């Protein structure tokens, strides 16, 4: 009876996951969707603790340990989630991805130990109408493959995410050595080959090799994220998200548990879609993102000497913006770094008081994760109806008087349209140059994260407003007030 109630709970949980994701498609229902999936998850967890029967038909033991882990994890999780700044969301999501991967990898390790202790047999409980029967079967190659898949994918997700977290929070610098991609490929092939070898000769080979695969996967995770530049982070985070789902799905196979499988595959699909969208937004293939260490060497630094940029004073900037009909703000990662989202909203309000129409143009890869800018502006109470996606924005620019670029760089670089030698050639960009005037706020003339020179800054239409985004905006607001 208990087991069948648990099945019902699992089915309901799987349905809540799907409904939750479906409700994410509308800002008005998304919050409820999140709550519904959360309730399904809690149900599945509680149900597992009290109703799950192990291979011998006994209930789960060690409740103190289980609840201890749940309490510790909940406290850490709530504190992290409540304290995180919206600007630090990409780091946070990377960390969570990594922990999910770690959990899947640890499960594989524990199950492997269990299998070794049982001399490569597995006990399977079967429920019949007449009662409960326990089967002892030799471990199949399929189980071993799943075990290794969970281990390899989970460890890669874990170490890759931790490194992504370090890079996003500025603790780790980009680093690549010559031939790194070949080393990476070799590492991966070695790890997979070793897994296959252990699978085929499981009872003869030393269990040490299992742990060698673990270590190789961890190293691979680090090496695979390490050379990827900051501008490509949205792709990497989406990919790691997808991997964390797939490694969870492996555990679903291991326990023949359909709710873990459903949840894991859903997340795998979500991450894959986001990865594809992000790659499309940059007009690059996934392989190109992963192996093409972005930036630096290829940029045409030679032309720079002959070009002159011009600066605009705060006063002039304030005047042109207050007397404009339409102003479009293009936010980028610089806005997040300067924590300037609230000040930005203030600027919007004060301009609107002066009768200026203000909108925002959001490039799909602005920031460090999909939708990063949307969350920041939502935090600052900017209505999401004011946010335009790239296609819409590009139609609006010709009728726009002033475009204010706040800490964005590559997403407005016209070189993407005509300079075949540019590393970002072909990437769809925001056509800010079709507006009447462009004001670019940057800290200095240094090239952006991708290390590419931006010719927009040297065009006659463009004026530079140097300084930290938050300070510049504050000064701009007080100037506008004094007009």
């Amino acid at each position: 009876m208990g087991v069948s109630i648990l099945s019902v709970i699992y089915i309901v949980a799987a349905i809540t996951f799907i409904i939750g994701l479906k409700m994410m498609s509308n800002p008005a229902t998304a919050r409820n969707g999140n709550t519904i999936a959360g309730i399904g998850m809690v149900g599945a967890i509680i149900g597992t603790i009290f109703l799950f029967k192990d291979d011998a038909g006994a209930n789960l033991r060690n409740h103190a340990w289980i609840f201890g882990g749940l309490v510790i994890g909940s406290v850490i999780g709530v504190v992290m989630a409540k304290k995180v700044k919206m600007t630090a969301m990409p780091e946070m999501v990377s960390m969570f991805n990594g922990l999910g991967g770690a959990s899947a990898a640890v499960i594989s390790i524990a199950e492997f130990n269990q299998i070794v202790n049982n001399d490569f047999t597995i006990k399977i409980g079967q429920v019949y109408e007449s009662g409960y029967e326990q089967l002892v079967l030799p471990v199949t190659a399929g189980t071993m493959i799943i075990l290794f898949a969970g281990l390899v994918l989970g460890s890669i997700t874990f170490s890759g995410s931790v490194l992504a977290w370090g890079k996003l929070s500025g603790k780790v610098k980009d680093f690549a050595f010559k031939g790194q991609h070949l080393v990476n490929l070799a590492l991966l092939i070695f790890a997979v080959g070793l897994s296959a070898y252990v699978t085929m000769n499981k009872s003869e080979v030393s269990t040490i090799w299992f742990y060698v695969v673990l270590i190789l996967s961890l190293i691979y995770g680090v090496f695979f994220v390490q050379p990827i530049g900051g501008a490509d982070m949205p792709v990497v985070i989406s990919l790691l998200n997808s991997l964390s789902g797939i490694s969870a799905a492996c555990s679903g196979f291991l326990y023949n548990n359909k709710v873990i499988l459903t949840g894991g595959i859903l997340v795998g699909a979500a991450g894959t879609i986001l990865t594809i969208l992000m790659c499309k937004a940059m007009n690059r293939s996934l392989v190109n993102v992963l192996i093409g260490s972005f930036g630096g060497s290829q940029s045409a630094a030679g032309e720079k000497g002959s070009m002159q940029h011009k600066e605009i004073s705060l006063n002039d900037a304030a005047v042109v913006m207050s007397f404009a009909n339409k102003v479009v703000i293009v936010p980028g990662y610089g806005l997040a770094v300067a924590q300037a989202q609230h000040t930005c909203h203030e600027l919007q309000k004060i301009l609107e008081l002066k009768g200026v129409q203000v909108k925002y143009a959001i490039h799909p890869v602005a920031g460090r994760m999909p939708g990063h800018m949307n969350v920041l502006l939502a935090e600052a109470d900017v209505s999401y109806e004011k946010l335009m996606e790239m296609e819409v924005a590009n139609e609006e620019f010709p009728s726009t008087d002033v475009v204010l670029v706040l800490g964005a760089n590559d997403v407005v670089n016209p070189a993407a349209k005509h300079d075949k030698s540019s590393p970002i050639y072909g990437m769809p960009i925001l056509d800010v140059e079709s507006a009447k005037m462009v004001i670019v706020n940057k800290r200095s003339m240094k090239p952006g994260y991708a290390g590419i020179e931006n010719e927009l800054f040297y065009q006659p239409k463009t004026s530079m407003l140097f300084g930290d985004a938050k300070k510049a905006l504050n000064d701009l607001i007080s100037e506008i007030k004094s007009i």
Partner: protein
Amino acid sequence: MRSIFEWLSANEQMIYIVILVIFLGFIVISRVPTVLHTPLMSHANAISGVVIIGAIIVMGRADSNNYAALILGLLAVIFGTINVVGGFVVTDRMMEMFRKKK
């Protein structure tokens, strides 16, 4: 080779689920607008924490003197819980910000 086929047929239902859920996931998630991509990701994150059920099973079947298994299980449970709880809470926090204006 034979054992792989045996495994496939033993897991036939699971494989059907994988295939159907992949398509279902693609359809459902393609409809999520760009505005909500960050919450979508943290929400998906929380769901991938469903692996915690596996962690609970590891822990719950370990002998109470098998400390290796208990500690591994504890780690997996803690990691999974942070993932689940943190993911849902942070998504809720974000969604609250989105809804305020509407």
